[in-house]
């Protein structure tokens, strides 16, 4: 293998694939990344056997070939180089690098040893705008937790219908659903669950790109593909396992009606709940009293040692008075992911889930269970 590549480009590629390279010591080859020429492209791949990331770039190829080298040494060294051309040359199992006056050799392992990132048998394919998918995932990516026996809800659920994509996450205490209108009508509806970590890596990649992303669903696997802006060739591919099992019937959790509703200024509310959090003690309990007649909500918290807190917030309300308690953290998590300046809170009664949603848009809903009285 003999190629020439820009330092900038190489650095970019390394930082993208590096996220999947494993830190585990059980299988040393996983700490390496694979460099491989494919016609006029250099392909970098890394995997930890759960997810795999591939990246391509157009380079000058003098001689084809492939090799794996330790990711950490390669990427930290490349980041020190000037933004000039770098010559890569494979000699035996070693990689020789030349950039201006730098001459380096990094010891590698034969590409034969590197795991194969599985090819996907394409069943379904959808195109989504990267920025929208990225922003949507960020609204609920932190919700799932691995504490539950049920592995299905440790991931993020994607449900494609004809015209829209629903993304859902829950940890059994709260649940968020985000809707994205698809650019093109979808032929069939299908769904899958991706691990939370896959979603995190996906968000990291999406932050950097402008092109649309292809979501390709196959048996036991999911592939996210971004194509190059100027060629019909893949630019980045993220392959991941999907979580086996069917996602619980989450729609029945979202209350269909309410007895109390109040519309409040989001930033003011967020600030007042954060202030309440000073006095919640160990059990994180914040009390809300919504009085539609007075058009206000009272926020209270108290702790035997610390003291107590009491404030009001004015809003437009209707329905019955309700007295309900929540874990303040769950409220903050929901509110801080609402994009509108005003927010709607809805309640059925003190022992039923509360709903938080934006004003003016119906694309996001956050449902949270109260603390029992």
């Amino acid at each position, binding site marked *: 293998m003999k190629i020439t590549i820009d330092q900038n480009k190489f650095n970019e590629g390394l930082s993208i694939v590096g996220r999947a390279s494993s830190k585990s010591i059980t299988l040393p080859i996983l700490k390496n990344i694979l460099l491989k020429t494919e016609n006029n492209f250099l392909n970098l791949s890394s995997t930890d056997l*759960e997810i795999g990331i591939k990246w391509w770039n157009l380079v000058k190829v003098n001689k084809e070939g492939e090799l794996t080298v330790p990711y950490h040494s390669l990427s930290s060294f490349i980041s020190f180089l000037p933004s000039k051309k770098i010559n890569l040359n494979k000699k035996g199992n070693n990689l020789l690098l030349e950039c201006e006056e730098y001459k380096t050799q990094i010891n590698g392992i034969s590409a034969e040893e590197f795991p194969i990132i599985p*090819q996907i048998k394409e069943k379904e394919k959808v195109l989504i705008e990267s920025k929208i998918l990225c922003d949507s995932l960020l609204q609920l990516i932190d919700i799932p937790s691995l504490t539950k026996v049920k592995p299905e809800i440790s991931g993020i659920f994607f449900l494609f219908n004809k015209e829209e994509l629903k993304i859902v996450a829950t940890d059994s205490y709260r*649940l968020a659903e985000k809707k994205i209108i698809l650019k093109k009508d979808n032929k069939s509806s299908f769904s899958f669950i991706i691990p939370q970590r896959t979603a995190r890596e996906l968000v990291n990649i999406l932050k950097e790109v402008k092109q649309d992303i292809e979501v390709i669903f196959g*048996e036991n696997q999911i592939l996210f593909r971004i194509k190059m802006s100027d060629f019909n060739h893949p630019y980045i591919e993220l392959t991941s396992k999907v979580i086996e099992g069917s996602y619980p019937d989450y729609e029945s959790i979202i209350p269909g009606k309410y007895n109390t509703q109040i519309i409040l200024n989001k930033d003011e509310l967020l600030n007042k709940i954060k202030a309440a959090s000073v006095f919640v003690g160990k059990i994180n309990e914040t009390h809300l009293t919504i009085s539609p007649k007075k058009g206000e909500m009272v926020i209270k918290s108290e702790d*035997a040692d610390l003291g107590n807190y009491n404030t009001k917030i004015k809003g437009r309300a209707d329905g019955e008075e309700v007295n309900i308690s929540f*874990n303040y953290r769950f409220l903050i998590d929901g509110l801080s992911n609402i994009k509108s300046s005003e927010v709607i809170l809805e309640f059925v009664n003190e022992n039923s889930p509360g709903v938080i949603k934006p004003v003016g848009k119906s694309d996001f809903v956050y449902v949270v269970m109260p603390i029992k009285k």
Partner: protein
Amino acid sequence: MKKENIWESVLAQIKLDISEASFNTWFKHTNISTLKNKRAVISVPNTFVRDWLQSKYNKTILKALRSLNKDIKEVQYTVNPSIQQVETPNKKRKREEENNLNQMEFQNLIIDSETGLNPKYTFENFVIGPFNELAQAAGYAVSENPGSLYNPLFIYSKTGLGKTHLLQAIGNKARKRQKKKKVYYTQAQKFISEIISSIRNNRMEDFKRRYKDVDILIIDDIQFLSGKEKTQEEFFHTFNDLYEKNKQIILSSDRPPKSISALADRLKSRFEGGMIADIDYPDTETRAAIFKSKAQEKDFFIPDDVCYYIAENIQRNIRELEGVLNKLIIQQKITKLPIDLKNIKSILKDINQTSMYSLSFNKILKTISNFYDISEKDLLGSSRKKEIVKARQIIIYFLRKELNYSYPYIGKKIGGRDHTTVIYSFSKIEKDIKRNEDIKEEVSYIKETLASA
């Protein structure tokens, strides 16, 4: 040689030739799933392993297999994600959320969507005492031999004494014994709303199909069918259908079949056709044992004398015991006071005060009017119809017994009646309760409703 043994021996051979790291990465969690027609199918945890074994170890595996069984000509790989280990939970976060035991969860997420059962209810954590022995034994027997012993099994008790726990435990146990058995648990209210929406959307056929092929049908709180004629009719057909096919039916209610008002006689007689078992109020010792086992489930130690003290003071039902336990745990977390008799007394005082229900004239009137389906106006009016008179007498009984109103005052409150009428009515009901089972049941049901409202 059995296929499992063959695979074990293949693994042993391969282990000798490759590094431990590679072995653990590629061969751990692999299995042989089928071995026939000269073809061995190996199940692997993920696609990475499948592709790797296919391209790198296929020859080695085939050779090793053939050395044990000459007939094998081909190896295939199939992905079976369920054999992979589940990721270990994040302990730190778990502790944080468990800080507040009253934090509620979405029930629908825990419940098995296929059977409607909650896996946390099992026979193992069902405390047995003289009060529920019969029901438990009958339930256990049914879970082992569904459809053949007691059909239907009808369990009744007052609220909060473990009906739902027992019903679900039967379902979970039967399902564990025979994975293929189709178990379906539902609550009568849900059953009713399913029927209503099926009728409205013209999808009655779907509804019938769903219930036709279950092996064990469990319906909780069947008393809610009272007065719902169309639902009763549908349920009657479902019941007969399953019964004829020797499918197990398990029902629960808050009173025996004959006391469920506005229930068709043909249903009553069917409910009585199998085994009827009731769960009584637990005695103090059993309540203490239940309290202790609930505390243990939550990894919380409570001394025996405290358990006993609580059991003596919380007499109503088991659900209430659970509430006290949660309160105790939170109190203990906040105050850090040791759990002993002295502290427990002050905590219980608090709880008892808040759980004292406040009764009023209006509440009694409303509850009884709902129960007998007679309007409040009629109850306070002058009609001498038999049913209305009876309901009116029961109101008088409650006003005297629970609110301790004077006879003349009661007379004034219920439409200006003479105090002698009131005295007569009160003593009549008091006598009836002793003589007539139906009246006794009705009164105690109204009492329950009043207490829980």
